[in-house]
């Protein structure tokens, strides 16, 4: 990175953070600190919800996913519009009617104190464990590629987000997210434009899509009922609906973003903004990855995208096996490029037979080149058994560093960090709020001034920030960290969602029944997790279904309870 890149990077990140702190200085009102600006409009809410969900991994790894597997991953978001409609129509009006600070406060109104504390504790446990990842995951990729010290990258980016989140609370989070998302979109659009300009001059966009499609990268929708396939229309629609409902409806890091609206209308429109734009956004990020794949059909790509790991592997290559594989890879690439040109020439001349033949040969060449890459990974593992051989996360950052002009590189790296900071800020804000409202104010100190609770919330946010930093610094001790956090999430998410679904839709179930049902269901999930070997995503469904069923059975055994009335009566 050049001095110009550093100016762009530091200027945009620190500038946004300082602006957020300055605009929200002297905050003493609890409502404003925890919920944000009471006059915030739907566009700001929509942007805040989007920026919270889209972490740095979305912008670093998703293009790599498009490069590797094509557009199929977009199906994972098919359940989201429907989930957001349910949240906007059912969850949101209730949260606003009861004027709650946290989603778990609603559980206290609907059921009882112990159920509220259980919901809040499950959230803190799950989100607290995941807290380090939001900083660690992009830091490990960027420090590897840029040669920065990992601990310094984590500490500096972590401290920046802690300072402005503690200082300005929810209002600072929403305010900074607006500008951070502008930096992110500015960076991504610039990368797309530069990429299109760097494609061969005789290659039209239709040709580029033809090449991507010919290599199976544009298979966006798959209606297969095969449960073993990772991304299908049905798993995206049903699984995505389930996960999005849990995330947007019950996770405080999201709930806090949209309950702050000036009115129900503003909050609803903010959610609908996401329901309309999330799928197109993911599609364009994946398409960017597919076009990078096309670009690398005409420019020789590195045989392995994680440059640092490659250098280590290449140094410990006594027999020269890795270097000879690299030469083989280059030879196949040259051959493949000629075949693609022949394929496109045949297509332009209308010779379908020659087109089909050249395309098949090009596909075979790609298979050979992938086989060489697999051999390289095996050789790297033989040289270093701890080598990380999945390099798809490094595809986009490699393209950015190798082909984008200086200044734009700084903008893209700023975009990655802005994405990390925006989701981290919302997470810390939610952890601090839940600890203050559901535990400190509810259990420890019930009567105090707003200023006291604002100070307490600042301390809790700061402490959660330190926990996240500590976890991020020691994260490399845990193998396959992201998967570990996803497993923790799936183990808890189902039961938390069930608490809310029963609260909204099953009026005859009371606090005692749902509390014990949740504990039994959570125990069942733990037992199944340690005794079965099914995909962890299934525990979302199992935990939810078991909790709902147990609550009905326990309530039947306990006898009828008072059905909720007044503000708690669901529509």
């Amino acid at each position: 990175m050049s001095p110009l890149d550093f100016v762009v990077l530091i200027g945009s990140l620190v500038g946004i953070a300082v602006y957020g702190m300055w605009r929200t200085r002297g905050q003493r009102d609890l409502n404003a600190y925890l919920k944000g600006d009471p006059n915030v409009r739907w566009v700001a809410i929509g942007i805040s919800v989007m920026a919270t969900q889209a972490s740095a991994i979305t912008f670093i790894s998703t293009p790599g996913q498009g490069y590797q597997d094509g557009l199929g991953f977009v199906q994972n978001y098919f359940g989201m519009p429907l989930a957001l409609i349910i949240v906007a129509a059912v969850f949101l009006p209730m949260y606003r009617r009861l004027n709650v600070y946290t989603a778990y406060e609603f559980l206290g109104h609907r059921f009882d104190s112990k159920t509220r504390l259980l919901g809040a504790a499950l959230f803190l446990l799950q989100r607290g464990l995941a807290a380090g990842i939001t900083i660690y995951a992009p830091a490990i990729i960027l420090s590897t590629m840029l040669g920065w010290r990992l601990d310094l990258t984590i500490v500096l980016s972590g401290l920046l987000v802690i300072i402005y989140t503690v200082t300005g609370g929810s209002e600072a989070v929403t305010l900074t997210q607006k500008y951070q998302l502008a930096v992110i979109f500015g960076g991504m659009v610039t990368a797309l434009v530069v990429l299109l300009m760097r494609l061969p001059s005789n290659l039209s966009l239709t040709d580029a899509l033809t090449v991507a499609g010919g290599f199976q990268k544009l298979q966006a929708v798959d209606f297969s009922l095969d449960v073993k396939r990772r991304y299908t229309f049905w798993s995206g629609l049903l699984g995505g609906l389930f996960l999005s409902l849990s995330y947007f409806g019950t996770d405080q890091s999201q709930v806090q973003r949209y309950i702050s609206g000036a009115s129900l209308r503003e909050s609803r429109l903010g959610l609908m903004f996401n329901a309309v734009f999330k799928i197109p956004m993911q599609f364009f990020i994946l398409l960017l990855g597919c076009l990078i794949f096309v670009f690398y059909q005409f420019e020789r790509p590195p045989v392995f995208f994680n440059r640092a790991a490659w250098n280590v592997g290449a140094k410990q290559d006594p027999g020269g096996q890795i270097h000879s594989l690299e030469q083989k890879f280059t030879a196949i690439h040259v051959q493949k490029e000629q075949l693609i040109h022949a394929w496109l020439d045949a297509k332009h001349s209308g010779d379908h037979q020659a087109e089909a033949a050249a395309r098949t040969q090009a596909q075979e060449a790609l298979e050979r080149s992938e086989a060489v890459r697999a051999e390289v990974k095996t050789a790297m593992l033989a040289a270093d058994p701890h080598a990380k051989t999945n390099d798809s996360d490094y595809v986009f950052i490699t393209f950015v560093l190798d082909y984008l002009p200086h200044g734009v590189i700084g903008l893209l790296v700023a975009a990655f960090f802005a994405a990390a900071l925006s989701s981290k800020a919302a997470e810390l804000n939610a952890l601090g709020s839940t600890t203050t409202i559901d535990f400190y104010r509810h259990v420890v100190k019930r009567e105090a001034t707003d200023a006291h609770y604002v100070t307490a919330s600042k301390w809790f946010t700061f402490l959660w920030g330190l926990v996240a930093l500590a976890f991020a610094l020691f994260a490399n001790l845990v193998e396959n960290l992201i998967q570990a956090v996803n497993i923790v999430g799936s183990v808890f998410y189902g039961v938390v969602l069930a608490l809310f679904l029963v609260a909204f839709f099953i009026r005859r179930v009371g606090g005692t029944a749902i509390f014990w049902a949740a504990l039994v269901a959570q125990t069942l999930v733990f037992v199944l997790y340690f005794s079965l070997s099914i995909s962890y995503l299934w525990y979302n469904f199992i935990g939810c279904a078991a909790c709902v069923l147990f609550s009905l059975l326990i309530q039947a055994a306990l006898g009828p309870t008072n059905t909720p009335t007044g503000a708690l009566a669901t529509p």
Partner: protein
Amino acid sequence: MKPLDDKATGLPWFRTWRAVYIFVFVSFILWVGLLVALTVTFS
């Protein structure tokens, strides 16, 4: 200007929330349709 109540969407073409939800659902269907068309055209 008179403030909007929560039942009004304040949008010129969609005056009820039901209409907004239908619009969101239809835009989702259109996106799926476009993605299916892309899959079929370039595979």
